[in-house]
């Protein structure tokens, strides 16, 4: 029993943190050249580092690591509002059962976005030019060829995530997996990203509160700020620890792993959205400026909150869920 990152896990966190702050810094989302796309050279760097094959078995060309490393990596991705393509691409490699396709996915040569339900149709989240889309449900994952169908780019509140609607045509299924693992890893990954967002929001305001002065004092000396920061720390701590529970439960194939996952996703959603909100408020005027990172965290958390279980669905499931004792 050791419910915290340790040993090699910490090394992966460190490597990921360094790599991501270089390859997808939050600054990419500001200014006129800002784009939600995972650029080809960056996608290639991810592939070179092996991030797309982190949890794929070694026999299939992956790194054979567990749900724990998966959670640790996506928490770091979340801090940078990383493109959802990264998760879609990794999960697609698991769904794909054809070696050539899998190799292309791991190498970043085939680009994948995430397909999510949108009324009777699907909506595509991620880079606009991707020819493949992954649609994940609780009991299956489908990799779709969307290159031949008609899509329409639409505006996106979240600068980190491009959105397209499907205007016509039928997507062809390229690969299908019919077990729940893809959903579980997707849910864990998004919960982890939300934890990263919640922690980033806390880090931003704590840093600012140490230097910004009003009425001749650092704002970090005012209880109105201090107590709100402590509450942010608590939300992040609860979500992070439940994320560890969910990751370890999934790694160990516990029968109640899905309950831990639903709880983790719910707590992470709340921590991310509320912390991002409070971070803006406590920054004052600068908090609503486009040039500041604060709004990026809020907008990204609102998007992630709808993926792999939104509040209503998660709570409805949790109400009747039973834990293994």
């Amino acid at each position, binding site marked *: *029993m*050791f*419910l*915290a*990152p*340790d040993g090699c*896990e910490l090394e992966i966190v460190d490597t990921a943190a360094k790599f991501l702050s270089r390859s997808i810094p939050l600054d990419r989302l500001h200014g006129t050249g800002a784009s939600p796309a995972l650029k080809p050279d960056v996608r290639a760097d991810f592939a070179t580092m092996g991030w797309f094959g982190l949890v794929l078995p070694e026999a299939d060309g992956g790194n054979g690591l567990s749900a*724990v490393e998966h959670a640790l990596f996506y928490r770091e991705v979340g801090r940078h509002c990383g493109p959802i393509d990264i998760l879609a691409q990794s999960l697609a490699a698991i769904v794909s059962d054809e070696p050539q396709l899998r190799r292309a996915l791991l190498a970043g040569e085939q680009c994948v976005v995430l397909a999510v339900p949108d009324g009777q149709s699907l909506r595509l989240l991620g880079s606009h030019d991707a020819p493949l889309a992954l649609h994940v449900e609780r009991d299956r994952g489908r990799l779709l060829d969307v290159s031949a169908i008609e899509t329409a780019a639409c505006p996106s509140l979240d600068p980190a995530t491009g959105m397209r609607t499907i205007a016509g045509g039928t997507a062809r299924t390229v690969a299908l997996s019919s077990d729940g693992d893809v959903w579980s890893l997707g849910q864990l990954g998004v919960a982890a990203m939300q934890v990263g967002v919640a922690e980033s929001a*806390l880090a931003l305001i*704590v840093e600012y*509160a*140490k230097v910004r002065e009003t009425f001749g*004092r*650092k704002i*970090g*000396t005012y*209880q109105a*700020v*201090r*107590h709100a*920061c*402590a*509450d942010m*720390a*608590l939300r992040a*701590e*609860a*979500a*992070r*620890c*439940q994320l*560890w*529970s969910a*990751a*370890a*439960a999934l*790694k*160990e194939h*516990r029968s109640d792993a899905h*309950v*831990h996952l*639903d*709880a983790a996703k*719910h*707590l992470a959603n709340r921590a991310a959205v509320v912390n991002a909100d409070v971070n803006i408020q406590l920054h004052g005027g600068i908090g609503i400026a486009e040039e500041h990172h604060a709004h990026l965290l809020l907008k990204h958390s609102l998007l992630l909150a709808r993926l792999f279980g939104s*509040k*209503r669905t*998660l*709570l*409805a*499931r*949790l*109400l009747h*869920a039973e*834990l293994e*004792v």
Partner: protein
Amino acid sequence: MDLRYSEEDDEFRARARAWLQAHVPQSSRPPRGRAAADFDRAWQRKLYEHGWAGIAWPKEYGGRGLTALQQVIWYEELARAHAPHHINTTYVALMHAGPTLIARGTDAQKAYHLPRILSGEALWCQGFSEPNAGSDLASLTTRGVVDGTDVIVTGVKTWTTDAQHADFQELLVRTDTRSHRHHGLTWLICDMRSRGIEIRPITTMLLDEHVNTVFYNEVRIPRANVVGDMGDGWSTALATLSFERGTGFIGDQLELYERVQRAIQLAKQVRLEDGRFAIDHDDIAERLAALKAETMAIRAMTLANIAEVDRTGVPGPKSSLMKLMVTSTHKALSELIGDTLGWEFLEFDGNRVSHPWTYDFLWSWVYTIAGGTSEIQREITADRLLGLPRTR
């Protein structure tokens, strides 16, 4: 990172479960007074005789020398067996005085007190807060004047839980009258039967008398009862924290989880004023489910804290977050049950056995105030965990 228990942990759990099944008292704890204290003593005595006292205390002090995780397992099994709650009249002795003596006591103090604490023979109370020193504990003014081999104490302590049942008190007094704040304080072992002590119970909003005001009129305490150094009482008071590894709340966690499950059953049976079952109201269902997630997080926080302390060797900075989490969850659940129940929720006359939900609801303010208010916990978090600038 893993959630697996070792073979020793599993064996320990199995032994604890089997023993508790055979030994948990059949009768329920009397709700108050001397009878409640006697019940707690008898239960502690039984734990001591069967080797279940001081599970994580070092062996040399009569403990079992087991791990923090096994301590957690023990609390979980206590809650599962519906055994007497560990937060009772033995709590200050076992969770506070004992650890402080282990960290800072003299050999003679340890030899005399530790066995009595573990066996339930001696109950302790805490003498820290004063009428004008609560959250701001360092402003305390109860005075201790050295006179030969004694310290003569004069002053007032308050909010003293179970003072009327306690044999000893951990008493923090100002022995250097020219000193300020954290300096010049001394931590004393006070025999509650000493001459010059008067105890006045305070009736609380729960209609019970678990807290008291204690008056000291030139109470003589031997200098041999100083724990740590004279004038170094603040550091002695903090030493207890180095023993605390954030495991004390795990029993509450399991209890809170079970309470959420019971509240869900309750909501399936109770009809609200519109005639529909409470559970069929979306707001109530959502609040119940969210509380279930929060009680799960409390367990995760406890286990993560043990792991972090094991790795870094630095205890404590997150125990304030733990207290905030447990007490706010307790309060939210109590409020929700109040919203669910009908008029019987308001038929309360102080009987915690017949009206446990109302009693628990009122108890939530004890929880969020005692042992450092929620506001103070946020201050500690801002200082120690977040490193924000301070003005205090």
